[in-house]
């Protein structure tokens, strides 16, 4: 992080904070969340999807997660500092969770 970047981080993008999603956006997001939840429920019963079920479900789940965080929690419209404060720990926590699952369980490839 150089001086310029640091200064840029310091400066709050006030105009971004003033932009909020419209009611229409909120309702569209809710509709997508409902549809994806229905899709998640449906795909687990489709046998042909079994080989890709795990990544498929994770992708759908991540999409829903992102929609709520971006629109309902306003991270898409808010300061980048807030995005950093949430996304950095989220990524690190995900990595640690995978590590715990791998090292303690049998999730990935490292067998003792």
């Amino acid at each position, binding site marked *: *992080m*150089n*001086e310029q970047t*640091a*200064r840029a981080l*310091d400066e*709050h993008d*006030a105009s971004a*904070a003033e932009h*909020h999603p419209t*009611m229409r956006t*909120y*309702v569209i*997001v*809710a509709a997508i*969340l*409902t549809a994806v*939840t229905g899709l*998640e*429920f449906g795909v*687990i019963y489709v046998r042909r999807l*079994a080989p890709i*079920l*795990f990544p498929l*479900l*994770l992708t*759908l*789940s991540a999409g*829903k*997660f992102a929609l*709520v*965080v971006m629109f*309902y*929690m306003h991270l898409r419209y*808010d*300061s980048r*500092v*807030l995005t950093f*404060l*949430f996304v*950095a*720990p*989220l990524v*690190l*926590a*995900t990595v*640690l*969770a*995978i*590590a*715990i*699952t791998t*090292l*303690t*369980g049998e*999730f990935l*490839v*490292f*067998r*003792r």
Partner: protein
Amino acid sequence: MADRAEPRTFYRSPPTARAGLAVPAATGLLSWLTTVDHKRIGILYGVSSLTFFLIGGIEALIIRLQLVRPHAGIVSAETFNALFTMHGTTMVFLAIMPLNSAFFNYIIPLMIGARDVAFPRLNALSFWIFLGGGLFLNASWLVGAPPDGGWFGYANLTTLQFSPGLSIDFWMLSIQILGASSIIAAINFIVTILNMRPPGMTLMRMPLFVWMSLVTQFLIVLAFPPVTVGLIFLMFDRFFGTHFFDVAAGGDLHLWQHLFWIFGHPEVYILILPAFGIVSEVLPTFSRKPLFGAQIMIYSGVLIGFFGFNVWSHHMFAAGMGPVADAAFSIATMIIAIPTGVKIFNWLATMWRGTLRPTVAFHYAAGLVALFTIGGLSGIMHSSPPVDLLQTDTYFVVAHLHYVLIGGSLFGILAGAYYWWPKMTGRLLDERLGRLQFWMMFAGFNIAFFPQHFLGVAGMPRRIYTYGAGTGWTAWSAVSTVGAFIIGLGVLLFLVNAWRSLRHGAIAAGDPWDGRTLEWRTSSPPPAHDFDEVPPVYGRDSFWIEKYGDTRGRKPTPRPAQPDPHGIHLPAPSHWPVVIALGIGLAAVGALTSLGLVLIGVAVLVVGAFAFALEHHDNPAHVSQEGRLGIDHRKLAMWVFLGSECFLFGTLIATYMAYKGRSVVGPLPHEILNIPVTTLSTFDLLMSSLLMVLALAAVQRGDRRQARLWLAGTALFGIIFLGFQAYEFTAFVHEGLTLQTNLFGSTFFTLTGFHGGHVTLGVIWLLTLLVLHLRGRVGPRDALKVEIAGLYWHFVDVVWILIFTLVYLVP
């Protein structure tokens, strides 16, 4: 902020410098119990942690007496176990961490030109919870049940089967209490540092101590949740008969080690980085040179913090993780030596050709550079798994960690104590006595701990309460004991020096060391409001540049200090932090004695929390708390908290996944989970998020009817979700699945129960806002309060999105 009305405490004519401790006009016990002044809280941290440090030191001396010769017989094996457990726990959680907190509290607001921290009452709450946790832990001595399972509390040694009685209960409850205190304080300081800097103080212009403190706060916020989850598992195993660490039921003891060391290794940096920051202030001041490569020093500190999260398993090389994991953690551990080495060389370069003034503070700072280097070198040895296997559980490791934590952390803290003592008290410590103390500490430390390398190589295991005469360990053990007592005398000398200084010490000027940073710009001790005016910032060493110009001697165009446009606003005292801490303490005592006391404690806690939350609800001075980043302090704090929650739920979910399919008896997930019903409850929770944003929008535009409707709707949907959960839990119990049935039951109920607990808190929060709204106490100007509740609510929602997928849908 322009619409702030006059707060309760308001100084129009600031008091000038005065001798004695830096306290506002109010005196007496009550004023200390209710204080929210960062300087007073810093002093409270300093005094209480020094007391705990002395207790931990006495425990260390008894340990050394027991080992002075073979079969010494000073204490029994059981007492020895308790002594090393309490010594480690005390020094880590009750001495070094809070001694650092004393500096965070007292110095950081001064260094960034602020009048207090972002949340002064929360600051007081952190302290009182910390004190309660410390007293609770040490109360174990009084009831004859001191913890005796090591400061790491390895399961299954600490499970009920192998550690019956109260001792481990004291330990695990107190660590949870202390963890809560640390997380609350860390969130407060992150917001303070990011949001309360004066104009001109960009991130890269922040003093190194502030930077290292910032990194430390992030480590605390992110590292404590995993061990908290581990402690909850252990507590559930002990109190409710779950199977997290029950090998016969499929549990994996490595899980505890991972959860502990994911916290435990960053904890090393939580202890050491503030000391690095102190040294980075002390050396430039007494070398009369800017810190060499300050930006690189900042990057190095950040990298140390980051890599600190990726090396935890080097504490587990002997646990049998396999070659791939061993190699990965070995490489990561070696890499962390790079930024650490950068710091060492930059400190040396700072002193190189400087105009050195060998004050006591300088002695300690230089001492840290020397001693930490030795500890770092033995650390690199440990990064190699084959070498580490030979050193594991020997005195070599004891030597290493003490070189890092005494030679590093404690020497840094002592440097800070001598450096900032005049600022805190308005009086100087005796330099002659201080130098004597330094040499006693330096010599005593090396006499005590260097021989432990030899003992380790000779095979002496750590944590043994005695040894045989023919082992060859007697001579070095005796030398080590002599060194420990010399350290003890050194500490005693510091107390004498402090006492003399407070009674008869020379009066200190505002800037006794010709300092470089903003804290020296105000009087010693500072007035209650810290600065009469917002200090101008000219660069990293702002005060130095203001006095002498930049490195080429060019003086900046003087900028007058800015009068605070809002006047001098100091927070009013509050007794609710003490009440909340009391509630937590009562609940903890109740957990060991009676359910009734738990309920009383929870009742006190709930009453205190509500009163705390609503204390300033109608105070117009608290309507807007927008800071440097253009973000309200409270919103910033909520996002930091949610980052911490990612780690909490990440650990809970990871444990569920790690234990998936390892139950040795049924019922199993596919036999019992009702996916259609849970899909409905998931839909319900998702729709509650829609209602929440509608409620916020209505509050923002002042539509009272809609606001009430959507707030009530959100809470109702939350209650319906809880109803689904109650139905599911009841059905499972009827089908034979409880917390105690198998690993699936333990992990499932704990994960979903914790989420349900969060939903319950959210519902209570929403209902409180609704009641306030019905009473006309929530208007458009309070929209931020609804927004923050909404952030929490949506987070609970997104966590459920993951739980729904990973627990219910993934086969």
